[in-house]
């Protein structure tokens, strides 16, 4: 069942991928991100991070508010290179 539950839609990371990562002892959110690629696609974790954080809290038996979100990577929204190069003005 958990193989069919998608947690990160951008990178196709399933619940069972995350369970496997936790079973290896990688229960930190940053570790789950690096082990599975979760949160590194177009939405940059906006959809999946909360779900993943709850799963990490369960796995390491700590309250959810003690799970540190992974570092936000700029830009907030995808921006084209033309705009960044100043060619659009």
């Amino acid at each position: 069942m958990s193989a069919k539950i998608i947690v990160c839609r951008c990178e196709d990371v399933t619940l069972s991928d995350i369970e496997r990562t936790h079973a290896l002892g990688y229960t930190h959110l940053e570790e789950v991100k690096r082990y599975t690629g979760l949160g590194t696609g177009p939405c940059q974790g906006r959809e999946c991070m909360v779900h993943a954080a709850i799963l990490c809290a369960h796995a390491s038996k700590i309250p959810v508010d003690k799970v540190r979100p992974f570092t936000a990577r700029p830009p907030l929204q995808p921006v084209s290179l033309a705009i960044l190069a100043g060619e659009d003005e």
Partner: protein
Amino acid sequence: MKSECDIAIIGGGIMGLSMAYQLSRAGVTNVVVLERGYMAEGASGRNGGGVRMQWSSESNVLLMRESIDLMRHFAQEIGVNVWLRQGGYLFLARSEAEREKMETNVALQNRCDVPTRMLSPEEARAIVPELDLSGIVCASYNPKDGTVFPWPFLWGYAHQAMARGVEVRLHTGVDAIEPSADGYLLATSKRETGERDTLRAKRVVNAAGSWSPEVARLVGLELPNRPHRHEILSTEPLKPFLAPMVSLLSSGLYFSQSMRGEIVTGISLEDHDDGSVKLGSRLGFLTKIARELTQLVPRFAELEVLRQWAGPYDVTPDGQPILGEPLPGFFLCCGFVGHGFMMAPVIGKRYAEWLSGKKKDPIFDRFTLDRFKSGKLEPEEMILG
């Protein structure tokens, strides 16, 4: 959990893990790797995955050639796919001075059996038709260079070493190192809980990357390496079209297409150096790289940037690593600037040969801490960023 070991490796980046893996293969398994953060927290989890044999010093050409050869068997050996893709590296020169250096380097690489060739701008465009080559005088191209996906490399090494009895202790930093009768006594603490512990080790390896000067200071050694922030970004994924890593020597711009289709790109950028590791992302990086990149590849103008991040280059005065045993039983494996990922397979192997008593490679007498005092330097010039 071990309370005593033969070898304690401080730093669970690619260097520490490669060494641990190779030691375990050589039968030395009473080893503990101590990593202050999570796996892949340091430079090893933040790099561009470029692997190349195009260097200016003979030692680097030969070491990287061997390293890439080791990587080719990695999937089989370790059972992890590191997505090694040998699409080549294409370096572009803009001036006659750059052309001259390029020709010297290519001749050296050819003497080392690396098949790099000089190309005209037209020949370069035949490899990457999207390039706007105005102002480019020539290029060098080695089809055997390539890229890897860095993250699985780390798990691959770690899991194989652990399966043979090595302990990889994550979230555990080394705070103090005391010499003792039979080696060293390390004081450690857990980053999250502060929980303290000790570990006795006959020998200690400092593989703490950009943090290695801090670790060396725990035994009273001053190292000359300094951390330099290097920024990088990746874009939305595109259909695979780009085989080589492309790099412009004049600005240090480089870009490649990952196996996920994203363009991964970085560039040289000044930073203010106060000796601390800085990992913040800057807008100045985005605007500089956007200008350079859209000039070289006009079709990238519409491409959207998804994420930018930074990692520490561990920079030495001559661009070469710091190895060897400056104090009895205390070893250095640091100073890999911006090319430590591709060096790790071969350095780990040579280190394991030495520490397991098989043989000591001449690199351990050449790239010592002492060389900075005696002034015998052979600088590496092909460093980007």
